[in-house]
């Protein structure tokens, strides 16, 4: 019998009991002639944080961008396999790419606020969708900024330029801008790599809160960050043909304490290559 321990292991609990939000099935992405990632199968669980880790060039960002068809924007990029969102293949003919990108939002490595006010940054997406009513926009802006843990700092200066904020605040503004589109999944491509340690921890804390309402997939070079914030971890590596492939996927607590694959062990303990 397992003894009952009065200690919490939240990541373990979080690594179970959730339904599939997205599912990557035998995905390969080719840029012109070179394959960037190959034959990737990966589940993305709802209201969980999935971290994608791996060495440079292993296709982490390619995989991430395949989750909302961002690779479509790259000339010569070709996708094989399927990416299911709530069971539907986002690459199936007739899918509305704009709607997919609204449902699966993205936050980038460098904070990239638009050169406009804080308010307009957040209201940008909803306006693009045709929302004009001020009271509705006000509500969306406030809620989005609250969700991004930025409201208290900017509520009295909504008219100031988004570019005037600190780096960490800019990144939270970008998160608020993504949230304003009411996404279901948020993709984050190294969202803290341009931030100082305090701003990084603030974003990490925010990610933990965001997963209550969103499914989050994050690419990070920082393994300690992956260990701190994710429920599941996928480790990608570059094969001899230079294409990225999935080495191991599992609950983060297992991947970081007792990985199944020698390659994963070597990578996370810093003995890689």
């Amino acid at each position: 019998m397992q003894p009952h321990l009065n200690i919490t292991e939240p990541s373990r609990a979080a690594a179970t009991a959730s339904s599939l939000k997205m599912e990557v099935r035998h995905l390969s992405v080719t840029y012109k002639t070179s394959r960037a990632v190959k034959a990737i199968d990966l589940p993305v669980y709802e209201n969980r944080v999935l971290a994608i880790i791996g060495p440079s060039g292993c296709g982490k960002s390619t995989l991430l961008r395949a989750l909302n068809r961002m690779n479509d924007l790259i000339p010569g990029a070709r996708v094989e396999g399927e990416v299911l969102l709530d069971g539907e293949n986002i690459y199936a003919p007739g899918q509305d790419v704009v709607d997919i990108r609204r449902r699966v939002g993205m936050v980038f490595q460098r904070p990239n606020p638009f050169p406009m006010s804080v308010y307009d940054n957040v209201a940008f997406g909803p306006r693009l969708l045709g929302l004009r009513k001020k009271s509705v926009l006000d509500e969306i802006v406030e809620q989005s900024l609250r969700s991004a843990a930025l409201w208290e700092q900017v509520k009295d200066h909504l008219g100031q330029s988004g570019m005037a904020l600190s780096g960490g605040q800019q990144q939270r503004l970008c998160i608020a801008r993504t949230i304003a589109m009411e996404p279901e999944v948020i993709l984050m491509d190294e969202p803290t790599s341009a931030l100082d340690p305090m701003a990084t921890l603030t974003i990490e804390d925010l990610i933990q809160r965001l997963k209550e309402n969103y499914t989050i997939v994050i690419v990070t070079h920082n393994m300690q960050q992956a260990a701190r914030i994710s429920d599941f971890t996928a480790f990608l590596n570059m094969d001899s043909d230079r294409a990225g492939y999935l080495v191991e996927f599992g609950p983060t607590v297992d991947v970081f304490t007792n990985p199944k694959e020698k390659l994963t062990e070597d990578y996370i303990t810093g003995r890689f290559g």
Partner: protein
Amino acid sequence: MPRTVLETELRNLKGEVLKQGQMVGDAMLAAIEALKHRDVEASRRIMAADRDINALRFEIERATLIVIATQQPLAHDLRLLASILDIAGELERMGDYAKGIAKINILMGDKPLLKPLIDLPRMAEIATDMLRQALVAFSNDDAETARAIPGRDDEVDALYNQIYRELMTFMIQDPKTIDQANYLLWAAHNVERTADRVTNICERTIFTATGEIVELA
């Protein structure tokens, strides 16, 4: 990406654990030897030396925490460090058993032994040999050997039962022997517990090597 600093630290820490284990094994054998020859002076020295074993335990603990804080170990490295903390604690307690036996010799005063000690030294030899093997297995990350070592605990238990029966007979035949027989039983119990703790070290070695938490006999 080599981890020279981390690997050096891990090697050093393992070395310190082996050193602590050596001190504990020596203390146990010396405590039994002192009891066998009723050498009270030797027992006093053993009791004093236990402080060094305790100090080394805390030194190992401090160094382990520094490695965790500064090197961010994961997976096997992290399991090894967790095991080092645990084993250093086990060894400290085993040191206390040796100290306990030294104290018994002092408490027994100047009375001669009820009979020459034969089974008790034998028990201590097996227990310390198990300890030595367990530390080698730990050092080599050898789960297979670690699984086999606790089997020898049966020999220790059998000797303990024999000593127990023998001392009971003394006590029943002549109540004046109760004090000394009890002391000797206490000493035998300490040796028996030492062997039990070797099992814990073996469990830690298996955990370090495989990530699996097992309860060996």
